[in-house]
């Protein structure tokens, strides 16, 4: 009765040189995943931004000035995932079939240990009860449940869309989904096509090719967390800043 499902490794490649910081990915993400509109007093560090666009500059004056934008979401670490081991009540797990790191708000008790453990600051806590402008509840995406106060949430590669794709496939009698049936909201929304999402295990997929390319790097590679989100850039200063390059063992800081 059980079907043998092919092993997938969903991942993402983000081309920093294509990102102009418009923020469409963040908007699309928040709408897709019913991310609460947090009260304005949240400030910079108490909001909910599953994907957060950082802007970094080379601190030079025109014409040498340059800015780069880095969209950072959950990196879906594939190796010793820092947040999974720490959760006391198994509210975080890695999907054995596709490597997506999950966060189940209904199981979470809000101890925030996973946030402390995450090196990418990609996990967010609901400091308030979720708020939407009055009357907009029926505009929410029915495929994703809203979170309640006091729990942690984060990017799960638009899993609602994965569900939808599976359902559609099943209605056509297929147990497996086609690559083009499952796209994350951020990848779909990016006007510059800076975000490529797909199955890293499939060597012919565009995402796998890009990730294997010479310009690709991972954030904080040296931690050995094996992120499944890769970044591309041709600008060396961006790479030096964004990718934490390994340090000589004599402990000399390289900045």
């Amino acid at each position: 009765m059980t079907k043998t499902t092919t092993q997938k490794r969903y991942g993402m490649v983000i081309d920093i040189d294509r990102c102009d910081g418009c923020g469409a990915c963040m908007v699309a993400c928040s709408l897709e995943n019913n991310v609460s509109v947090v009260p304005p007093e949240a400030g910079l560090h108490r909001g909910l931004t599953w994907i957060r666009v950082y802007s970094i500059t080379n601190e030079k004056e025109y014409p040498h000035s340059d800015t780069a934008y880095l969209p950072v979401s959950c990196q879906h670490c594939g190796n010793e995932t820092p947040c999974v081991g720490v959760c006391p009540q198994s509210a975080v797990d890695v999907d054995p079939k596709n490597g997506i790191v999950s966060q189940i708000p209904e199981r979470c008790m809000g101890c925030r240990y996973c946030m402390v453990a995450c090196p990418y600051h990609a996990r967010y806590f609901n400091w308030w009860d979720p708020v939407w402008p009055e009357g907009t509840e029926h505009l929410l995406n029915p495929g994703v449940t809203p979170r309640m106060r006091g729990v942690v949430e984060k990017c799960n590669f638009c899993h609602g869309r994965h569900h939808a794709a599976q359902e559609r496939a099943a209605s056509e009698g297929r147990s497996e989904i086609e690559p083009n049936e499952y796209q994350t909201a951020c990848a779909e929304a990016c006007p510059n096509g800076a975000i490529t999402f797909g199955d890293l295990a499939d060597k012919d997929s565009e995402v796998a090719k890009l990730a294997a390319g010479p310009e690709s790097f991972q954030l904080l590679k040296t931690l050995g967390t094996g992120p499944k989100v890769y970044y591309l850039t041709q600008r060396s200063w961006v790479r030096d800043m964004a990718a934490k390059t390994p340090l000589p063992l004599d402990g000399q800081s390289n900045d």
Partner: protein
Amino acid sequence: MGFSVKRRDFLGLIGGGAIGAALSPAPWKSLDDVAIWTQNWSWKPRLPRGPVEVAFTHCGLCPAGCGLKVRSVGGSPVSVHGVPGHPLSAGFVCALGLAGRYLSYHPSRIVEPTVVGTDGQRRGIPFKAAVRQLGKWLDEARSGGGHGSVAILDNRPDRMRSLAYRKWLGALDGVHVKGLREDAPINRLRAMLDGQVPELGLDIARARTVLSFGAPVLEGLGSGEAGSRLRGRSGTEKPYIVQIETRPSRTAHSADLWLRIAPGTETVLALGLANILVSEGLYDKEIIGRTALDLDGPGGYRELVARFSPKQVARITGIDAATIKKVARRFASGPAVVIPGVDPGGGPLSPEAQTAAFSLSLLNGDVGRPGGVVARRVSETIQLPGTAQLANTVELADVPDGSIRLLIADGIAGGCAMPTSLLKRKLNPSEGRVVSLSPFERSAMHEADLVLPSTTPFESIDETGVPIDSPVDSMGLTVPSMRAPDYSVDSLHVLSMVTKSNVPKITELLRSRSDRIHAGGRGSVFDPSKGESAPITEFKTAGHLWRALLDGGLWTDSSATFTCPPFRLMGADAAIRDRLHKVLEQPSTADGWAHELVLMPFGWRDAPGDGPLPPVMAKLFRETRLRLDSRFATICPGTAKDLGFAEGDKASIKTSLGSITVEVVLDPAVANGVVHVAVGPSTGAFGDATREKGDQPLDLPSCKNDDCWRVIPAKMLEVVS
């Protein structure tokens, strides 16, 4: 004795009770229920339930009119997606489009007619009373003044609805006033051409070079289709984009070449480029010699540009001569598009700058050639019932000051913000009244004497209009994807009630255009559900075409050929010609007011300067500071140091008209002596566009001399708190 016995028995009872309870499921079940309660307690929003319906429409939030796929549950849209293969938007939707449906529930939505009473207080009144009030003012206005005393301000003047406005105004001897739009400058070009000129479009997508004077070409200007080509995503060769802009905008960030021009020196740069084209003979002497009416002779174009040597221009614009030469040669090497940009917050370039810019197109022979400025076929105008002439349509700038006694503002967003002072100038100082038909309290309109709540683009049927870059005419409808609230009114309905005349309903108007298109038998229709286009001839009856449009289809005309008529490189307007000749004379500081830096207001293309922001966008920009609103001022570290400011300081920016308080943000890419402040919705709350008077940078500039407020002399003072 009694005491201890009681105690023991009591303890016995308790003990027995405890054990008994533990042996029943009750405590464990309640433990479980308590946990479940925390997972779905009443104040956690419930998800919409039920099957998903899919429909197609167009986005009415800006003139780009992107095709939309809307998924709805129980009649409310739960998600919005682009439509791949759409002739105009090519699957593109901007952030605003994705979140736009939330605007219908925006906190700043107007839910009842309001009027400003004699005491200056705004209070709600019944709809009937509002109409009566409007009627009264209408009569007063007409008795008081002659032609043009009644006006309708229309941000999308090319819709069928606009036609009905003009008919209505015609009977009242009023004027149809164009609001500020990103495609406004094109009329400047039309004015430079001799004789009858059709509607023009900028063929950005096929250009070899795009010379953008501060236009947000990579931030959603024009159609999504052009956008994807400009971003090199369509497989076709990507145009070379030269962004001429002082502010380190997103377009400047991703353009092939960013020229950080000194504030307000666009005219000089344009003429400097012309200088090189002329002196190096980088233009078709034969044709231009024949078609250009003011190239040679005393005071001619040649004489004018001769004064703008690269060295000279470099000194003024701050762009080195070599680069100017390089750009000029690149420009002349093939079809190019020049866009004198209208900034969503900073407004248009000065008239002479626009003229100078377009003179390059003419010189390059781009008018009438693919990849340059192309002409659109206009489907012949529809006759409306009634004998009255159509009122003519004029640019706001051309409206005489103080002439309007009753201004009715059509609710639709144009995407560009206007200074309150500019509008005020056009009104009759004593009894000029403003009536706003808007779903929201708009920045420029928040002082309207009478406000009638209208519908948002997602609630009402209308036309999208034609994007600035479209080489052909088109018709796409915004089909309602949510119910219009009972309190909202339709502008045409209001007009018909006021004058008791029969103004056609919007659906009738659109239907009649659709029928006319069908009769014309030109062009093709795109079917979003199939993702392909079919020639219009395949539609048996007019009814079929109408049905297709209601299902989110898009009609696009076949392209027309157009040969450039004779033209004047310095335009027909003597005043502008005069200004062009005077450009190099030292400009006096405005009102002789000593200033230490210039304030350059700007707006975000997909967060309209004149409309509210969907809460989700406000939230994200607030929590990441990815975009700064009017509460922040960006300056470069150098200037900050000179003025004694540091990151995060509170500062007050003073102009001759007033001051705003801002927080200082440092950016090394900003030019020296310049301060940039965003115009439009504050992200501080849920994205509200209504602000206290004098709190918006656009309430500051004075538009006394010309209609340009890009560069405002200002001071920056410390705020003593």
